[in-house]
């Protein structure tokens, strides 16, 4: 069920402002691809354009092509709601639904698809998803407690469970560990390792060690200059990026020398 993503010549605009310019890349299936780069370079914007979440902001639009397994995401007849059901997303800060129990949080996506679930089916989806998110053992005795009662790291894993409960093709993660402590971060990273067996994962991170630890491929984004749009500088296998990158700018960023 995992799918690859082909992006060609993608420009992303907010109204008249060009935020990201001319991105072309291929994101392989069943693999982890990391986006790194300084703040404001458009990597989160680009990530959001992969499931059309950037359209939440009025005036946002794209030019270019995003193909998921041969199907264009931006065809006129493609419903963004359908796209987001296929391409899940995990956010910077954990965001379980505050009024829902852990159990209902996991099922929220399925309930949206208007599926009538039998109790036994629902139970098994919840168990499978929470096990998939490495959270089952910690919460199995309190599934009916509110999701907000969990720790930050547990909440983030709950959000991952919620995202994988609908069995998406692709999982997008927008700095999923930036609000978490090192132990929770390590738990999420382990989880990402397991999830790539089944899902195509794209992760934005500010932590270069994290990119090096979890990803197969790394894309480095940067601004062309102050006030100019962000662009893709280089995309290569992670090992190569962190040892002998093609571009000098990449090496400067990774080694801590800017400009």
């Amino acid at each position: 069920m995992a799918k690859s993503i082909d992006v060609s010549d993608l420009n992303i605009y907010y109204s008249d402002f060009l935020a990201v310019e001319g991105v072309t890349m291929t994101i392989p299936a069943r693999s982890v691809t990391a986006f790194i780069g300084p703040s404001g370079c458009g990597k989160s914007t680009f990530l959001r354009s992969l499931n059309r979440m950037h359209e939440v902001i009025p005036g946002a639009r794209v030019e270019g092509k995003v193909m998921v397994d041969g199907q264009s995401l931006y065809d006129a007849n493609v419903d963004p709601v359908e796209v987001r059901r296929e391409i899940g997303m995990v956010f910077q800060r954990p965001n379980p639904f505050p009024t829902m129990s852990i159990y209902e949080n996991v099922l929220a996506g399925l309930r949206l698809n208007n599926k009538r679930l039998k109790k036994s089916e629902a139970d098994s989806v919840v168990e499978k998803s929470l096990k998939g998110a490495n959270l089952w053992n910690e919460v199995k005795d309190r599934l009916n407690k509110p999701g907000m009662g969990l720790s930050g790291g547990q909440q983030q894993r709950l959000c991952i469970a919620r995202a994988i409960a609908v069995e998406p093709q692709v999982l997008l993660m927008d700095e999923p560990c930036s609000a978490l402590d090192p132990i929770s971060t390590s738990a999420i990273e382990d989880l990402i390792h397991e999830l790539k067996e089944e899902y195509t994962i794209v992760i934005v991170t500010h932590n270069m060690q994290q990119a090096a630890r979890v990803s197969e491929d790394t894309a480095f984004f940067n601004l062309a200059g102050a006030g100019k749009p962000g662009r893709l500088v280089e995309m290569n296998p992670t090992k190569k990026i962190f040892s002998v990158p093609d571009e000098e700018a990449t090496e400067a960023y990774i080694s801590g020398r800017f400009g």
Partner: protein
Amino acid sequence: MSVIEQKAGSPKRRLGDLVFANLTFGSGLLILVALAGVAIFLTIQGIPGFSAKAADLDGHANFIAYVWPLVFGTLLAAAIALLIALPLAMGVALSISHYAPRRLAVVIGYLVDLLAAVPSVVYGLWGISFLGPRLAPLYGWLGTHLSWIPLFKGPALNSGRTILTAAIVLAIMILPIITAISREIFMQTPRLNEEAALALGATRWEMIRLSVFPYAKSGIVSAAMLGLGRAMGETMAVAMVLSATGIVSFNLISATNPSTIAANIALKFSDSTGVQVNALIASGLVLFVITFIVNFAARAIVSRGDVRNK
């Protein structure tokens, strides 16, 4: 190394802080004093009314029999008004906060706020001379075809000045406050919660159901209760629109309608003398207490359902 000198137990009090603290404390106290003043006035002046005789109570045997139809009318009109206004206000508030393009939303918001600036006398006039006559044919139809429903038993009043018309006028009057509060709360829904729903493939309406409503629940309740309180206390419009006979009836479209406490006081006060005045003030005390109860109930509901404080 520099040492900051500080005498134990006597931190420096700055004059500005002191003045401001006392000023705010005084303002708070003033509210309490005003409220207590009203309550004491109503109680002292109202007490003789509780034991008034039939002659001073429009022929009712005792005060309870006198005030009960008024309480009933007050609650009925306010409840119908809320029933009409709440869904409408939710719709308007949502269109402003989540659906309409920003420019249009600003205009709608402004117009709804403008509704609150219309004096209630004007609403009364509008109810009598515009809304009532235009609703009369509808009442006629209801009275003929749906008279098996007790609410529309009829016979329908030709002038349309029924309790239903009064309630509709009230609904329009409480629409702005409910809309304004709900709109503010809808707009405060954390982006994060909305995106959580959207990223799962929720449509806009599903997103609102999953994220906005649970977040805004307690706020909606308080908005509704404020609206209810306003509807119960509203005087002029009801006094003008309603052709009241002071009975207890669920028949919403007939010529005999229950009156409300506030309207009754407004209509009778200038002609009343002696104990009759005390009886009116006593009915005012009853309204005061009911409004209090509604407000406290709202607080209780809000504090119980508040997810943000958990």
